[in-house]
């Protein structure tokens, strides 16, 4: 906490409230204005994150999980994407209201992101050392030589062998796993207290995935960072997350502590997803299937967006407004009118 206080002051952010949550997103809305109509990618997403906590955001492609992350980071492509409502508060300060220059400074010091595809996230024409050192030069005013020294330290930190030599290599000279380590090193450079990892291991082989997830968990523990892990892999989540938020068509449909949600899913979508993944430790029976397709974001169904695919759906589910997040047991919420029935079975 003392570290946060000191750093917060040096950021020059106004009115930080250190008793407020580390990160609190409320009612976030994002839409993409396209020629075929407005795509409502994020429709009122709310969650909070505390230091040392791992929050997993689970969703399929098009569920709005990456767009949420981009909106928090302030790196949404505008146009076509616009944040049309809600707040993103860091220790009580609404980041969406900050002028761009201040936001950039904030981003540099407090929040960092690891992207899925490290090869396209890194610049191919500069050495990784240059790209790592650049941050220290830009935001800390260090010299070039000092920056390189810090870059080597970072690469050591993420366990890249022979860091002193490899710092002179270009991104294409690294393997997929090593490249992702470089990405992680880069995100940690300025000691952020929030890390957003957007599908950090999706492009990697399982053995490499295990290495990277272990590294991320270690670093998070050491530095007491809040980690937002965005993924579609329910196995990865079961291994690392504290809490889960499940997204569907731009909304959070269920949140719960990780053990609770696997044991007692209370939203039909979560439940169906859990039943549709094959497990390596069991020879399964026929996989249960979620019929149909996720909705097009320009035409989200009225009421509950999941209703056309849901086996519990009744008339009330087809009527607007969409179901609110019902409180299941204090720390578990579900946006289903029939959560008791879903949970009970």
């Amino acid at each position, binding site marked *: 906490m003392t570290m946060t206080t000191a750093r917060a002051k040096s950021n020059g952010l106004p009115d930080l409230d250190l008793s407020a949550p580390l990160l609190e997103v409320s009612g976030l809305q994002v839409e993409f204005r396209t020629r075929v109509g407005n795509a409502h990618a994020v429709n009122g997403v709310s969650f909070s994150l505390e230091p040392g906590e791992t929050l997993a955001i689970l969703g399929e492609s098009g569920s709005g999980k990456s767009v949420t992350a981009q909106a928090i980071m302030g790196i949404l492509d505008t146009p076509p994407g616009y944040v049309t409502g809600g707040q993103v508060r860091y220790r009580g300060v609404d980041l969406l209201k900050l002028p761009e220059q201040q936001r950039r400074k904030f981003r540099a010091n407090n929040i960092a992101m690891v992207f899925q595809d490290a090869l396209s996230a890194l610049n191919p024409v500069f050495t990784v050392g240059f790209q790592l050192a650049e941050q220290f030069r830009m935001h800390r005013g260090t010299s070039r030589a000092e920056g390189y020294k810090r870059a080597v330290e970072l690469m050591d930190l993420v366990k890249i062998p022979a860091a002193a030599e490899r710092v002179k290599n270009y991104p294409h000279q690294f393997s997929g796993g090593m490249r992702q380590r470089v990405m992680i090193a880069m995100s940690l450079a300025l000691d952020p207290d929030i890390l957003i990892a957007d599908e950090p291991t999706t492009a990697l*082989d399982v053995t490499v995935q295990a290495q990277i997830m272990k590294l991320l968990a270690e670093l998070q523990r050491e530095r007491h960072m809040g980690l937002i892990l965005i993924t579609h892999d329910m196995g990865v989540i079961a291994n690392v997350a504290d809490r889960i938020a499940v997204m569907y068509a731009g909304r959070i449909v269920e949140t719960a502590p990780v053990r609770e949600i696997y044991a007692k899913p209370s939203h039909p979508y979560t439940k169906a997803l859990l039943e549709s*993944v094959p497990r390596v430790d069991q020879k399964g029976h026929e996989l249960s299937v979620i019929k149909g397709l996720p909705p097009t974001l320009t035409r989200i169904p009225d009421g509950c967006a999941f209703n056309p695919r849901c086996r519990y759906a009744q008339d009330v589910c087809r009527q607007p407004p969409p179901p609110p997040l019902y409180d299941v047991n204090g720390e578990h919420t579900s946006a289903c009118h029939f959560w008791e029935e879903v949970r009970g079975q």
Partner: protein
Amino acid sequence: MNDELMLETTDLVKHFPLTRGIVFKRQVGAVQAVDGVNLQLHRGETLGVVGESGCGKTTLAKLLVGLEQPTGGSILVHGQDLSKVSGREVRRARRNIQLVMQDPYTSLNPRMTVGDIVGEPFDIHPDVVPKDKRRARVQELIELVGLNPDHINRYPHQFSGGQRQRIGIARALALNPQIILCDEPVSALDVSIQAQVINLLEELQDELGLSYIFIAHDLSVVRHIADRVAVMYLGKIVEQGTHEEIYDHPTHPYTQALLSAVPVPDPELRGHRDEIVLEGDVPSPANPPSGCRFRTRCWKAAEICATEEPALEERLASAHPSACHFAEERDVIHRVA
């Protein structure tokens, strides 16, 4: 399932030459993509082939369907060696083995309608279905994979990823093959769509008596669908057996490491599984380690591993073929203590 042998490979080898020089090309080495693979596939069976990227899975697939010529070894389909038959015969023999590709977005021609895509195999093999019955047959195929036969005139972009993969499957079924080779058929799809396609493949197998070779990196999917499993590492099969043998009683260190890395969607198992985290990356197939190719990353490696290549055979501590001098059972996917 019965014992009728559908496909057999013996010492299958594919090396891609590495050359230097422009005018006077000389070979300076070879990428040993597939190096001595023996596989057997029986009627109605699903053989899973698993391994990480770069282990030679896809090259193996290309060899089996005849898109690459092997450097050595043989492929027998129904007892017939494809490299020894004449041009016209090859065409007829290849009908029997069809491919479903990984990426449903690039493996369908965007300028052709679904009907043309699924019907194209009939242009190449005109004797399978007479011309006047083709349209009906195409509609039948489209219906078989669970799509609306009225959509025959639509283009691929009008379908979702899962539907496109169904189109790819319909195309593979057009020539009534007995063997279907699936190269990562579901890895590009979302979880909820994955299950639909896996179930479809299983239904088709029951209905049409197909044999599958199912190549994938996702070990959970392979466990679900495969009867027997072969684990590949750097162009070689390191362990082979039934799905119980491989998943519940793995004896090769690589298989164990691979399985231990697969996350299980059950938070109750967190910290209660035997954890093996491998160091380093897969070595280059252009310059593989001597002896056992896994020894550079193996915690059991001893001197013998560098000098003597372990054969894929049954061993004292392994009831199924395992290519490790120190093969030993270790449970890595279930709860321990």
